């Protein structure tokens, strides 16, 4: 059995290697700091949205859970980060960020048991219900959260005691980009690990997965918790970079927009959230300047068309293009000889 196990682990190791396209992507992402100094504000929002979308991709693309309630974790951590900064409990943003992530993950853990049961519709409803309830709670306790006015008087200390947040958003953007990269890196390690593979198998066929010994429910709880923590970090970033937090971090629109982002980018390969966020943000900005009142119509149309054309067909076309591009890339960058020839560029 040993040679087969070797083949398998070699194959897995190959898939986990960073492809040249990925490296180029991240180099370009960090280069935007210098390439577009005037656009840092919208780019910061894009980075936060990308991280948020990444969190949804973890449960939707890898575990098959449809959720309309990611905003619950986003908002909870956002308010947490704002409150600890406002009352001076934690003055250093990075510590606050990590704590906020843990708080969101805790909520994710507690609510994950509700998501285990029932059909797609049930999960949709439960996740939505939780987000709406949190929204109501935030409104009710407006003496703490500031209610509809939003959290006032939040001032964020300098990062690591050194880097102050400036009005132009430079520090904020670099901060967000670094956090995004770190979270992405961790997520990437996770999905290419045996843990990630078990997720994929249970998404495809939970019954069969449990038959070969994968603890389905435990996996779902774990990934849901991690995803919640990730969404929470995105929410805390938003509060920290804008020094403000209001009720719409918990709104239905935020969760719905997130689904849209992920669909544009594609699910199940981690970059979908990032690419979708960029396309969505700039599409929205462009459409909003063209038709300030009716851009929602065009976004809805885009959604309908994507579904009618069929996401699989779109992904097929892009897969063909991707394969030809990576073949081109492989020719440019020499690789060490691998067992069994070039690996197929799969997800």
């Amino acid at each position: 059995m040993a040679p087969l196990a070797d083949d398998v682990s070699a194959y897995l190791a190959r898939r986990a290697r960073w492809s040249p396209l990925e490296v180029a992507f991240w180099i370009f992402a960090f280069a935007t700091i210098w390439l577009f100094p005037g656009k840092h504000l919208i780019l910061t929002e894009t980075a936060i949205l990308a991280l948020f979308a990444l969190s949804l991709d973890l449960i939707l693309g890898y575990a098959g859970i449809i959720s309309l309630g990611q905003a619950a974790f986003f908002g909870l951590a956002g308010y947490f980060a704002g409150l600890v900064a406002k009352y001076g409990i934690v003055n250093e943003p990075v510590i606050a960020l990590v704590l906020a992530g843990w708080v969101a993950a805790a909520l994710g853990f507690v609510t994950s048991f509700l998501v285990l049961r029932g059909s797609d519709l049930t999960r949709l409803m439960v996740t939505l219900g939780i987000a709406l309830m949190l929204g109501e709670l935030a409104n009710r306790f407006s003496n703490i959260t500031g209610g509809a006015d939003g959290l006032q008087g939040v001032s964020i200390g300098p990062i690591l005691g050194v880097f102050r947040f400036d009005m132009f958003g430079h520090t904020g953007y670099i901060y967000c980009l670094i956090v995004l990269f770190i979270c992405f890196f961790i997520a990437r390690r996770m999905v290419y690990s045996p843990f990630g593979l078990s997720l994929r198998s249970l998404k495809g066929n939970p019954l069969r997965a449990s038959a070969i010994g994968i603890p389905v429910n435990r996996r779902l709880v774990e990934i849901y918790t991690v995803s919640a923590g990730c969404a929470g970090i995105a929410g805390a970033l938003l509060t920290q970079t804008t020094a403000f937090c209001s009720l719409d971090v918990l709104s239905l629109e935020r969760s719905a927009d997130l689904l849209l982002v992920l669909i544009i980018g594609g699910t199940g390969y981690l970059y979908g959230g990032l690419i979708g966020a960029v396309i969505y943000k700039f599409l929205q900005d462009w459409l909003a300047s063209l038709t300030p009142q009716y851009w929602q119509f065009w976004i809805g149309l885009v959604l309908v068309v994507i579904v009618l054309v069929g996401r699989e067909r779109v992904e097929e076309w892009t897969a063909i293009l991707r394969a030809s591009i990576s073949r081109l890339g492989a020719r440019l960058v020499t690789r060490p000889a691998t067992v069994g020839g070039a690996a197929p560029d799969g997800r």
Partner: protein
Amino acid sequence: MVRSYFLVAAAVALGLSAADTAFAQDTVKIGFILPMTGQQQSTGKQEAAAIKLYMAQHGDTVAGKKIELIIRDDAAVPDNTKRIAQELIVNDKVTFLAGFGVTPAALSVAPLSAESKTPEIVTAAGTSIITEKSLYIARTSFTLAQSTVPMADWAADNGIKKVVTMISDYAPGVDAEKSFTAEFKKKGGDVLESIRFPLANPDFAPFLQRAADQKPDAIFVFVPSGQGGTFVKQFVERGLDKAGIKIIGPGDVMDDDLITGMGDAVIGTVTAHLYSADHDSALNKAFVAAFKKANDGMRPNFMAVSGYDGMHLIYEALKKTGGKTDGDSLIEAIKGMAWESPRGPISIDAQTRDIIQNIYIRKVEKKNGELYNVEFATFPAVKDPVKAAEQK
């Protein structure tokens, strides 16, 4: 990935467009941030129409400078407002920031206004504390307390002794409840209960029933602009008007924009507010006629007149400074400015930079087949009561 290429192409295009072509120093840009989409979009629509009307009537050159108007949509989401404001200051180099459909939007931009010394002209939001958040904020709209306190005074002076307050549970509603209750109690009135219903409330029935059971003389109500009609209809539906209960409140519930569509059930409702399209002055009649002509017969409401006056403020400030565009000179010019607006005489308080205006008590009547708020009593030169109380 084809999507990567899309990204690169988009980025290059953006990079090119971001190159800021330097405009001649003779242009003054005004950045209006308004909710053109979302729940508050009627505010955005009214204000945008009024602003454009003012510019059409008064031209686009002031004190030798060309005026450029930029209108951006924030959907009343404060994160958007802040980001758009930053972009307007940093990229477009606006001289004025204006608009702000809801209080959180105005508040989120205050630190920016202070740090960059850009005058922030609030033409819609209505919470008292806004003007205190930066020395460069001036307001041409209203504060909620300006309407509710005179309402309480009028009610106490006109035989209303017991009131139940009913408000939507969000910041402006709570403000309205607090300021009304404080003044009404001071004048010897009794607030039997303070009922709050959720903002996204489909049905007023149970709350109305609860209020009616207390047998008050009047119900003080504050709901977001669109729900006023529904509230009054359900009020009449339960026969509460026949039981002798009056409805009072700030004029937000009897929005000029919507009032005719509400039906005859609302006739007789008494409200206190800064503006009625029916206001009897030559200036207002001309304003309403011009507004209707330019906007398919749409009637201007208090948001429109606030935006109109905001533009006037900006134009006059520039004239006064002789075209100087630094924040300090402009704010100095703005303090104490007084003029005749379509709503009546108004001025900007030199100390608080907030608006001082007449508040009118009006009743809904039918005129020429349409419903109007007809003014019958005036409280002249009302300052924002909250700040006035603090100053004493």
